[in-house]
């Protein structure tokens, strides 16, 4: 790894650890390997969003050309969000692509992601299905995102209706996550989800 990248990550690491966001448990960074090429990030779901109360784990890969190129970041924790793939966790965020600037840091990236959770950009989606639901059925989107936060990120809101529907599909032999994806994609319409799963 280029010396400047490693040196910078070391300094940034200290910056994040000392930052007040860490003190408030809003963001967190951990080392995954010894040479600072891979880190594990964690952000708290922002208040007044469907993600509130959840903790979202991020995979952060630091390229050799850092900070001249952005770090590669994706969600490990499954999340229902228009700009984040519900399948791969890939993030659609300009600063992680063409809008990256060398003056940005791990801390600013994590805070930007937190901001992304507060303010989705459905017109520049990563997950078209989620974005469509976000635009056409905001209430259903909210419930679904809350449910995903509850299941995968340890969020507090339990949706018994959704849980029961998934249980029914699981009893029919469907994988739980697949059942959740199908139901979420079809606004929790059992018939259409079943049709899609068994077609």
């Amino acid at each position: 790894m280029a010396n400047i990248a490693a040196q910078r990550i070391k300094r940034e690491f200290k910056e994040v650890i000392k930052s007040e966001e860490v003190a408030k448990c809003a963001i967190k960074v951990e080392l995954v390997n010894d040479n600072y090429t891979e880190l594990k990030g964690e952000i708290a779901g922002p208040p007044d969003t469907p993600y509130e109360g959840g903790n979202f784990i991020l995979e952060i890969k630091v390229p050799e050309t850092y900070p001249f190129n952005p770090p590669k970041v994706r969600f490990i924790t499954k999340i229902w969000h228009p700009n984040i793939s519900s399948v791969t966790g890939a993030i659609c965020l300009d600063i992680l692509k063409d809008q990256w600037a060398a003056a940005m840091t791990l801390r600013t990236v994590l805070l930007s992601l937190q901001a992304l959770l507060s303010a989705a950009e459905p017109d520049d989606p990563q997950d078209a299905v989620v974005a469509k639901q976000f635009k056409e059925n905001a209430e259903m989107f909210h419930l679904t995102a809350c449910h995903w936060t509850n299941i995968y990120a340890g969020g507090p809101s339990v949706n018994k209706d959704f849980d029961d529907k998934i249980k029914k599909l699981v009893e029919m032999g469907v994988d739980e996550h697949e059942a959740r994806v199908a139901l979420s994609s079809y606004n929790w319409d059992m018939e259409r989800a079943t049709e899609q799963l068994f077609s």
Partner: protein
Amino acid sequence: MAGNSNNLNLAQESCISDPDQLQAPEARFECPICLAWLRDPMQTSCGHRFCRKCIQSWLEREKACPVDNKPLDKDNDIFPDNFTRREISQQRLKCPNIIRGCSEDLSPLDVEAHLLTCKYGVPKLPDNEKLRCSFVAFGCDSKFEDEPEQQRHLEQETQKHLMLLSQAYSKLILNNSASTSSAAIAEQANFWDPPSKNDSNAMQISSNSNESVHNLLRSLYEKIVVLEQKNREQDIIMANMSEQIASLNLTVSKLSLRYCNGCYLWSITDFKNKINQMRVNHQIMHYSPGFYTSTYGYKLCIRFNLSPKDPTYVAILIHMMKSEHDNSLEWPFTGRISVTIVHPLDSFQNMRETMMTRPELEAFKRPVQDLNPRGFGYTEFVLIEDLFAQGFIDNNNLVIKVNAQPV
């Protein structure tokens, strides 16, 4: 050079690992790209400062300011910031090795260069200076450069450490028991020679008492198996021998009958009981084993029963018996037969009768059956009550002696 690069490594490492040594610059002296002191500072037209190398590298890729994204042209929009350069060069930092006695005051930009040659720098001492795993006492040999590394090791190797702990614990228990009784075990181990199929070395008490106890148990077990096997063999041998003894006894008694030279002592055991039975049933008769007048002579036996005419008397008769040598003998049997009821204590009281054979009687002809049904003797030899009264019955036995001598 090799030494130098080594030193460089040392200086950087000690600089990074010691938080006190990492003197972060004030924001106005910090390059937003490398986050270090501005080296050869440049200012952009949008008013941001960077190291010359950092901003040049950035502008080779992008055409905007890394901080505010304003468009920048690498030839026209960046200028040397000599004011800042002078300010930084006037800053004075203590050498990070001040705690070890270095009193150098340095420009921030010179710190790294100074550390390469600072004689107060701590050489990265070999193994003995490295951090050890806290489970070193249990056999974990891992060494670390710094505490985070040590911490990670402790988190990742929990399984290994648990195993080391449990091993140490079981060793402790074994040592405990071994230290009190190892001498006894050693003595016993020598005492119980291992079976030949076992390696004799296996029994030696090694320093590893676990192994020796295990070996002891194993050879004890093998010993038991061998002993059980031997025991079984002995049982079989014993059975064979008692069979042999029985058959020898039989042979001996047969021989004694053959070699008695016509003089046979017949001991009637359980006499009272037999008399009582005979009194109830007069038909009961008792026969002695057949005996020979000589080795290849006549075979005869004694018959003892109650007299059919007067059951208060006992009858003692002689019967000729068929033998394998009858062909070589002269028939009818001729000779003298004496019958004696032996008094157990006083031979003067013996009752003795002698009779001569009478060749015209069936009883002395060559027997055609095993036993000639005709006998010859005294049907009223003596009163039963006399036998008891005169003390002939000793230990419930009556002894009758017959001496048959051919002439």
